Structure formats: structure tokens, C-alpha cells
């Protein structure tokens, strides 16, 4: 096997653009999926069944089906059957946001439940409304507790953005697979793709470990 790595160096700007797109997609998705997850978590915690049940169904559904299929579904079904025209980028983000919001909502819900009931009672006893107790006492503590779990979701999201390449969003994997088909230097290009993901993902995985140690909840 004779290797020619020049294909990688010559295409560095394209890899770079792809990597930027991957980062951008991850950030955009997370920015939307944090409020999305919070809303779903509040809905599931609601005492009104009409609010809680649909949220539960949404979350369970998106957690139990493959993201790649969700992306296909949004891509093929929305324009053809509901007359919604979205760009590929918007389709990708919509699919990712629904999926990650569902995972985030479980994280937030666990965090909120983990705060002892006594804190609610104490808040009410000093005359706060339920919304105030949630906003000022429960939620800030819950968010600190779930920070490591959120960080883990972030790393999975970062990896999962690679799936949008199937609907031709020009992220790192789409760009790499394209360069592979153009150049026929299969081994070099695919190894470079893995290496670039590794370079970006490895420090993040390590950071998550650090967050888990730093913010470990001791009961």
C-alpha cells in the first residue's frame, strides 16, 4: 500500500470549513436544545395530564428511535406531505434539536427531582410562589448538578452531527466523503477524517471527565 498524504494537505481548507460547520451545528443545536429540554421537562413535571402526557410521548419516542432515521423522516416527509419547505441546514438542525431536547429534558427532570422537597416547602413557607421557588432556588441548584450530564450529551451531539452528512449538509464527514470520491485516496482521506474528529473530540471527552470529577454530587 503506497500512501500519498498530499491529498490531505492540499484539501486542508475544505476540511477546515467542514470542521467549522460541525462545530457550528453542535453549538446551534445545543443553544436551541437547552430551552427545548427545559420546556419538555417542565411539561413532564406538570400536574396536568394533558400537558405531561404529550411531552412524555415526545421524549420517549425520540429517545427510542435512531437519529439517522429522524433526520431522513424530517427531510423526506415534511416537504412532501406537510408542504413545509426547509433548507437542508434547517432540516438538519430541526432533527438534531428534537433529538437532543428529548435527552436534555430527562437530564433536567432528573436534576429538578433530585432537589429535596423540603426546599420547596421552605420556599413556600417564606411566602414565595411556586414559580419563584423553581426559578430562584430549585433550578439553579439542579442546573449545577446536571452540568456533567449535559456535557456528556454535548460530546454525543458533537459526534452525532456527522449524521447530517446523509442529507448533504457540508459538515466534516460530508466534506471528507466527498474528497474521498474525488481523489480515490480512500485510506488517507478517511484516516484524516477520523484524525480530525479525534483532535476535536478527545479534549472534549477529557473535559467531560474533569467536569464529572469536579462537580460530583456527594449525597
Amino acid at each position, binding site marked *: *500500500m503506497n500512501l500519498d498524504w498530499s491529498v490531505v494537505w492540499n484539501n486542508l481548507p475544505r476540511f477546515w470549513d467542514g470542521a467549522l460547520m460541525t462545530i457550528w451545528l453542535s453549538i446551534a443545536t445545543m443553544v436551541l436544545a437547552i430551552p427545548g429540554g427545559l420546556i419538555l421537562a417542565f411539561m413532564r413535571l406538570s400536574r396536568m395530564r394533558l400537558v405531561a402526557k404529550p411531552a412524555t410521548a415526545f421524549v*420517549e*419516542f425520540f429517545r*427510542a*428511535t*435512531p*437519529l*439517522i*432515521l*429522524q433526520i*431522513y*423522516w424530517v427531510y*423526506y*416527509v415534511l416537504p*412532501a*406531505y*406537510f*408542504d413545509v419547505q426547509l433548507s437542508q441546514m434547517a432540516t438538519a438542525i430541526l432533527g438534531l434539536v428534537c433529538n437532543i431536547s428529548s435527552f436534555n429534558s430527562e437530564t433536567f427532570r432528573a436534576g429538578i427531582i433530585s432537589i429535596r422537597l423540603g426546599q420547596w416547602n421552605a420556599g413556600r413557607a417564606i411566602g414565595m410562589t411556586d414559580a419563584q421557588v423553581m426559578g430562584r432556588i430549585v433550578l439553579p441548584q439542579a442546573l449545577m448538578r446536571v452540568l456533567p450530564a449535559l456535557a456528556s450529551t454535548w*460530546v454525543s451531539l458533537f*459526534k*452525532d*452531527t*456527522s*449524521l447530517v*452528512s*446523509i442529507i448533504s449538509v457540508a459538515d466534516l*464527514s460530508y466534506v471528507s*466523503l466527498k474528497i*474521498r470520491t474525488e481523489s480515490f485516496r*480512500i*485510506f488517507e482521506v*478517511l*484516516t484524516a*477524517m*477520523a484524525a480530525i*474528529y*479525534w483532535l*476535536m*473530540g*478527545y479534549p*472534549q*471527552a*477529557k473535559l467531560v471527565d474533569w467536569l464529572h470529577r469536579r462537580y460530583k454530587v456527594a449525597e
Partner: protein
Amino acid sequence: MPSIVLWPITGSWQFLLQALWTTIVLSVLSMVLAFAIGVVVGALRTYGGRVLDLALGFYVDSMRAIPVLVVLVWTFFAFPLVIGHSLNVLTAGVIGLGVHLGAYMAETIRAGLTSVRRGQMWAALALGMSRIQAIRTIILPQALIRMLPALGSLFVFAVKDSAIASVIAVPELLRQTQVVAGNSFRPFELYTAAMLAYFLLCFPIARGVDRIYRRLAHLGSS
């Protein structure tokens, strides 16, 4: 909105059922491979000393950093160039998915093994057992029960990730759904049916494992 018809699904039900079976086989085989990797890597990282821990930690963290899609594509297209002969798609799929999931499995098993108190290892060694014997007969059985919920969610991940093998054309459910959707021009019915099939596969696994765990949880406490 065009009307919904069922003929694309009923007309190819055998083809799709075969694909569903491939999805199950692919998920189970990759889960088995991941479990084998996980037990070895998890045990060596826990009991094998610092050098092994660092070396295998590198494998685990690398797999946490590289997307499954990339691992699969690399295994199918690039790895054969290294070994000199091609892999069939199912083998490549099982290897790619298994090696990726193996890292997560290793972390789960390591957490399970460290959760069993050290005194039990000492007690087993004091009774004259070898380390391997102690792990196999004392530590691992308890750890496995404690790990059940995590194993259940990893299995759900295995099923969901198996859909990504469609990218290297493993004839599993998503891939064959694409084929039928393309031939019949009915993506809505086909993709929705596939979605339901995955849900019906994954949701009971998660719930079933939780139920089994509640039955067995007391066996894991010490």
C-alpha cells in the same frame, strides 16, 4: 397532504421483515462483540496496573471522540486496504459498531467492577483464589447485576446505532426502507413504518431490562 396508502409496505413485507431480522442480528452481534471487548478492557483497566490503564484509556477516550459513522466508514473502506482483502458489509458493520460500543461497555463494566468493595477481592485472595477466579466468580456476577440498567441502555444504543450501518449498505431495516421508499415513491409510509418498528424494538428493551433489574437488584447488593 396526499392520501396515505399501505401497499408499499404490505407489498414488500417479506423484504422488510428480512431487513428487520438483519437489524436484530446486527445489533445482537455488535452487542456481543462490545461485551467481550468491554469485559477484557474494563477488567484490565481496573486490575491491570497503570500502564495498561493508560493505554486502554486511550482506546476508550478515542472511541468517545470519533463518531460511529466515521468508525463504520473507516472499517469498511479503509481497513481492508490495511489487511489486504475486503470485508463483507455485515462483518464490517459488526466490527465497526462493536469496537465503538465496546469503549462505552468498558466504562460501564469498569464502573460496575469498582463498585464492588475491595474487601471482597482481598477475601477471595485470602481464600486462595486466583485474581481471575475472584473476578469471574465473585466480583463480576455482582457487578453485572448492578450494571443491568446501564447494559439495557447500551443495548438500545446498539439497536439505534445499527441504523447508521445503512451508510455502508448493510441490508438492515433503514437501508432496505430506503430501497422500498425509492422504488415506490412513498417515503412517508415507509419511513414512518420504520420509525414505529425501531420504537417497538427499543422501547420494550429499555422497559424490560428495568423490570428485570427490579427483580434482581437485591442479588447485586452486598
